[in-house]
């Protein structure tokens, strides 16, 4: 079995694990990263979202082999960035966090959305976040947070 090599949170790592393991389990159990969460295990809820080469993916559906030679970023690393600070301030300001189990995945979705569209319309935000379920907030406050982040963080994305 060939070891799998990928960049995790800006560090080159090599793991000797079954290639069909779910990336989510590798992150949580092997690397002890508690940011990605398992909400459904079937790719519907987005609580396990991470960035793969800058794009959002559900880590519960991704076999480890698929990240070979690629860049995986979890909330733990993204939270050190300037863009995260802007999103965090906006989410806290607008009350976008309740129970918080969807939040790391939601923040990853916001980053991925703003990467593609730094100034999204209301409708674009609602479509952009529709792969991340939240049962607490009703979404309004999260949508407002994205708008605030986009305006406060102008030039960052």
């Amino acid at each position: 079995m060939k070891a799998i090599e990928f960049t995790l949170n800006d560090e080159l790592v090599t793991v000797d694990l079954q290639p069909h393991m779910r990336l989510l389990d590798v992150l949580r159990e092997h690397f002890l990263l508690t940011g990605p969460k398992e909400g459904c295990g079937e790719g519907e809820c987005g609580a396990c979202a991470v960035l793969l080469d800058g794009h959002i993916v559900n880590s519960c559906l991704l076999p480890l082999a698929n990240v070979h030679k690629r860049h995986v970023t979890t909330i733990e690393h993204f939270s050190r960035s300037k863009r995260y600070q802007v999103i965090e301030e906006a989410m806290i300001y607008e009350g976008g966090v309740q129970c918080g189990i969807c939040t790391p995945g939601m923040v990853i979705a916001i980053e991925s959305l703003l990467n593609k569209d730094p100034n999204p319309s209301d409708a674009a935000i609602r479509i952009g976040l529709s792969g991340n379920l939240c049962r607490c907030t009703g979404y309004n406050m999260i949508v407002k947070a994205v708008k605030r982040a986009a305006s406060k963080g102008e030039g960052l994305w």
Partner: protein
Amino acid sequence: MKTVKHTVPSVDGKGIMMGRKAFTDDFAEADSLVVKVLRSPHAFARIRAIDVSKARALEGVEMVITHHDVPRKPFTRAGQGYPEPSPHDKFILDEYVRYVGDEVCAVAAVDEKTANAALKSIEVDYEVLDPVLAFEDAIDNDCVVHPEEDIHEMFPIGFEPKRNLAAAYQMEVADVEAVLKESDVVVKHSFYTQAQAHVMMEPHTVNARIDYQNRLVLYSSTQTPFHVRRILSQTLDVPMQKIRVIKPRVGGGFGGKQALHGEMFVSLVTLKTGKPAKMVFTRKEVFESSYTRHPMRIDIALGANKDGTLKAIDCYALSDTGAYGEHALTVFMVAGSKVLPLYNKVDAVRFHGHVVYTNHTPAGAYRGYGAIQGNFALESAIDMLCEKLNIDPLAFRRKNMIAEGETSPIFEIMGEGTEGTAMNMETCKLDECLMRGKALIGWDDKYPRVKVDEDRYRAVGMAIAMQGSGIPYIDMGSASIKLNDDGFYNLTVGATDIGQGSDTILAQIAAEALDAPVEKVIVYSSDTDLTPFDVGAYASSTTYVSGNAVLRAAQSLREKMIEEAAKVLNVSKTSVAFDGKTFSTADNSISLVDLSNRLTYNDDQKQLAATDSYVGHKSPPPFMAGFVEIEIDQETGEYDILDYVSVVDCGVPVNPALARGQVEGGIVQGLGMAVFEKSAHTKKGRLIHNDMLTYKIPTSFDIKSLRTEFTESYEKSGPYGAKSVGEIGIDTPPAAVANAVYNALGVRINTLPITPERIVHALHTLNKEEK
């Protein structure tokens, strides 16, 4: 007020957003045994024989538990005050399985793969029995869901298991039938609500270990840690002092975690093997094998005079509790007690009904707790009555609904399993809620409908609602607060933050009482060893009940601090003023930091602390008016929710952003129940909608606009004027949407969810009738 009624950031939001270790599964020991449950493929069966020999022989399997291996002691999983109003009708494991997904046996293995392999190797010989699936046929059915003799109620709740009755009740004020007969206009209609799923994003999760003091320590994603400790102790015969339950961050509950789910099995495994164990429900298990909302049929009859005076309400409710009677009576009671007092001026009112066992997934607590079901029926029927009377539905409500200073006999008659508590509405801004909502939605321009194009209409609909604030004389909350050197505080509370932000709310209340900034109040909650008792997060009780406990404890600590400052300043305590930072007299002062350091290290040393508790003497209802605007296609019945306006009287919102979050989150869950969330079974009783693909909850794309406002209101009995706000948001959407659909197309949908199919079907029926 410096802190209360201000939006302060939640005390824990940042750490959780970064993904720091916070939730139950984050605390599982790395070497935990994985506990998995073999679940029944049959809606009703008796286990003739079960062969677990292959599973036991499998390498890596540490334990297999069947009904032969556990004490046979009936209990209820419902996390409620003791003695519970729910029947003790459940066994840890039983020879009977009563729904598809019920527990057959449990295994513990070194990893998930081995545990799953062990489950597959187990051979069960089932005697398949005829199930009871149609809840309207359950009473006195030949098939009896609970034939066993050794189950019981804790006090009279109408429990007759041989008749498939988990509970029954009736009350009547005056002679309803006589008043209905005298009424000029009568409306009678039946309404059906579905088994809504909670779909909290964190599945039910629990893990256990034996600590260095040889005690069983659980981390559990629960709304009721103290009830979990008690029920484990009673059922497993482990002395209560040997058990510690810690509730870490909970990823949503909504009532679904007001019960034990995996706690019994991980405890059994850890107690027997001495090894740590964990259980995380799969999403399918969350759907099939935890809790749902109680489906109900509600038959309602309203009588009114031509002048628009409501004279009588007659309400019969039939509730389906599924295989076990958890929360059976109490949810049913709330369908009356927190709905019917909305129209308190009637001459006669009756509420009666039955809660039946069926072979479906057990129903349990779910935000709204009966009130959403009752509200859908009553507020739909009110609109039907207005149509018949040809009276504006808002004018009718304003004339007949409850107002400040008034009461309803129902408060005294109906409690949750016991008698209720009489109370006057010290705060009820329902009229303001209604009038403000009317203006915000633009009712006068939009009611009943506006044509958009050939096929499409825009229409508005509305409903009013009430809830409660805790369960009076039963549910108690408590708090301890201590002063540390350097002048900051630790607040420990039994109250259970499940994501609603109660840690922040309670810190704000303490901070207000101590004139302290919120960051000087460090909150730790819900640990049966370290925090004082609280019943937990349910019945919209935390802000009101636990909040009052915090207020008392903080005020008492403040007194003690002033006493100590007076000693140092050598004056009487009445001449000391405290602004949160400094104790001062006319000519002298000492800072809080100096006083706390002095008391800790230098002179007359002592720990200043205060503990207090609170049990409600009433349950002041929050009120709201909810208005929806929809756009609907008359050919396809498809519609969009364009806007939802909520105007809420929850007393003083302690933290306006968090209160808004509660209301809007509730609205969207209520819209889910009204519009999207289907719950259907196969003919053999298997749940069809058992994953997130087929069970559709609202996404950000489905919600276009939510507007939420709070009326000025101050509830004297609440902490700094607060009432509750956790549940009220969920109640109005079903009736408001049903009323909007009627206003658009003239069809009355009486069954949730209100799908395009149901609308088109109703339109066809209407067309046939018209022809």
